[in-house]
């Protein structure tokens, strides 16, 4: 027996966040279980007892890609609980900040996560050898989104300028005008992106989704509007709990959301937003969608990459609109009223990957008594299982590595939080 030291110097990588268990009997898929290993993070628990004013900054830490979504859902939920009305230029600034998040998040998924799947590369680094311009374009677009978040939020990740009632500081007209050229350049990149994505090869698959998103009477939704679905839901956004519920799957740490009563899955995110709000796209986004032949309702999950590109154009166009009409609000926030009794408020906003629901109960004095946060990934999780079940049924002849790759692609279509790991899936197939 010899004792010795083995040098390794291996850097940890984020891989294996999920596992997919598939049970096949007589060439029939009996069960599909998507397991998410990431442990609970207990945000809802440790918000209790904190001031309601802290919620935007605490919940922003839930995600480094879409912190604005957490800030927007939390401030709107608090304002609804307190009976506050926040409109005018503060509302416009919130939309502008949210546009920044879409502009940084969508290209990240399109070029660094999704495109390598279509073009046959394990990741964007390998793809960059053959498609350097595409990867550079994606990074340049993402940088513009991040810069816009910095301008409005104080920093690009986990912004610090958002507060209940508005912003700690509103930018000057000149500060926003100075940013305009970056958005004009970004528009050219985004237009190229729409054509780039539309030219990818797509599997010929359609799914019967129940699409769920916000819908506003006159604009593509970010924070306002009712909660609607393609199968008949139409409720105020703070009534999420009336139509959906979270359930605990015994095999996964992440909660799943389902339709209340029937327990069926539904889909949130770009495909849903687009299908339910196609008529509210901005002119250039609408024109590009027509140019590349994008149907008014897209049921092919792989083509979500094109919808993301169209939404990026929308976000840039909307950002330009807001900057062009901007007048600096003074004061930059609406003062919240004192909290004298227990109040409850809920709100939904459109994170890049789908609706994000927050609900809070605030006690007298302003401390949070109860918090509920339902992220888009958990709302899509059951639907992703359905997609994967259909995929496996169509692909039983594939060997396990090929099937694993196909399942990862099917999951990545919906941009779940786990998909930023290159190889996030451990496939366990039980064939009988």
């Amino acid at each position: 027996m010899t004792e010795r030291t083995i040098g390794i110097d291996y850097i940890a990588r984020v891989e294996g966040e999920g596992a997919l268990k598939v049970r096949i009997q007589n060439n029939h898929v009996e069960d599909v279980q998507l397991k998410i290993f990431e442990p609970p993070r207990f945000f809802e628990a440790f918000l209790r007892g904190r001031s309601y004013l802290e919620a935007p900054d605490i919940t922003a830490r839930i995600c480094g890609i879409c912190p604005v979504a957490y800030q927007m859902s939390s401030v709107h939920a608090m304002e609804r609980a307190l009976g506050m009305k926040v409109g005018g230029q503060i509302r416009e600034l919130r939309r502008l900040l949210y546009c920044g998040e879409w502009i940084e998040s969508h290209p990240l998924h399109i070029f660094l996560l999704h495109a390598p799947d279509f073009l046959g590369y394990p990741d964007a680094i390998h793809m960059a050898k053959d498609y350097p311009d595409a990867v550079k374009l994606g990074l340049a677009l993402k940088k513009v989104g991040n810069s816009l978040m910095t301008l409005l939020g104080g920093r690009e990740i986990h912004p610090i300028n958002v507060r209940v009632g508005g912003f700690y500081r509103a930018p000057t007209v000149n500060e926003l005008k100075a940013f305009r050229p970056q958005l004009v350049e970004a528009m050219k990149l985004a237009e190229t992106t729409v054509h780039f994505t539309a030219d990818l090869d797509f599997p010929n698959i359609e799914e019967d989704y129940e699409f769920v998103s916000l819908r506003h009477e006159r604009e593509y939704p970010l924070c306002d509007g009712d909660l609607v679905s393609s199968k008949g839901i139409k409720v105020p956004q703070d009534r999420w709990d009336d139509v959906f519920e979270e359930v605990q799957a015994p095999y996964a740490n992440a909660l799943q959301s389902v339709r209340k009563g029937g327990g069926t899955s539904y889909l949130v995110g770009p495909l849903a937003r687009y299908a339910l709000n196609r008529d509210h796209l901005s002119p250039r986004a609408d024109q590009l969608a027509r140019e590349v032949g994008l149907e008014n309702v897209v049921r092919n999950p792989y083509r979500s990459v094109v919808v993301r590109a169209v939404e990026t154009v929308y976000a840039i166009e909307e950002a330009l609109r807001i900057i062009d009409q901007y007048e600096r609000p003074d004061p930059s926030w609406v003062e919240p009223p004192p909290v004298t009794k227990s109040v409850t408020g809920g709100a939904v906003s459109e994170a890049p990957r789908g609706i994000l629901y927050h609900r809070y109960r605030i006690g007298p004095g302003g401390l949070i008594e109860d918090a509920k946060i339902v992220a888009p990934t958990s709302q899509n999780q059951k639907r992703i299982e359905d997609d994967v079940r259909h995929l496996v049924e169509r692909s039983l002849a594939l060997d396990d590595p090929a099937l694993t790759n196909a399942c990862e692609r099917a999951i990545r279509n919906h941009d779940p939080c786990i998909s930023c790991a290159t190889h996030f899936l451990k496939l366990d197939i039980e064939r009988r």
Partner: protein
Amino acid sequence: MHEEAMLADLVRKAEAVARREGAKRVTRVRLWVGARSHLAGPELKDHWAYAVSGTVLAGAQVEIETSSDPNDPNAETVMLRSLDVDSAKGRS
């Protein structure tokens, strides 16, 4: 976030190395934590204890070196530096 996945990845790597080297037992593991890594020492130890349960690494002593250099190119990472093993093979 991602603590479990990161630690599981390090454990998989360490197990693979131990197997390759014919290790009967791993006696010591050295980890290096960058100055800007989101994993801190005590938290890392807890996650590590959970991650190695039931593996050849269970029971091995863990040494954690924490870097204070935020400009280190690996400052945001956690690294598996080395393993001490008991094995039939000689020093490689």
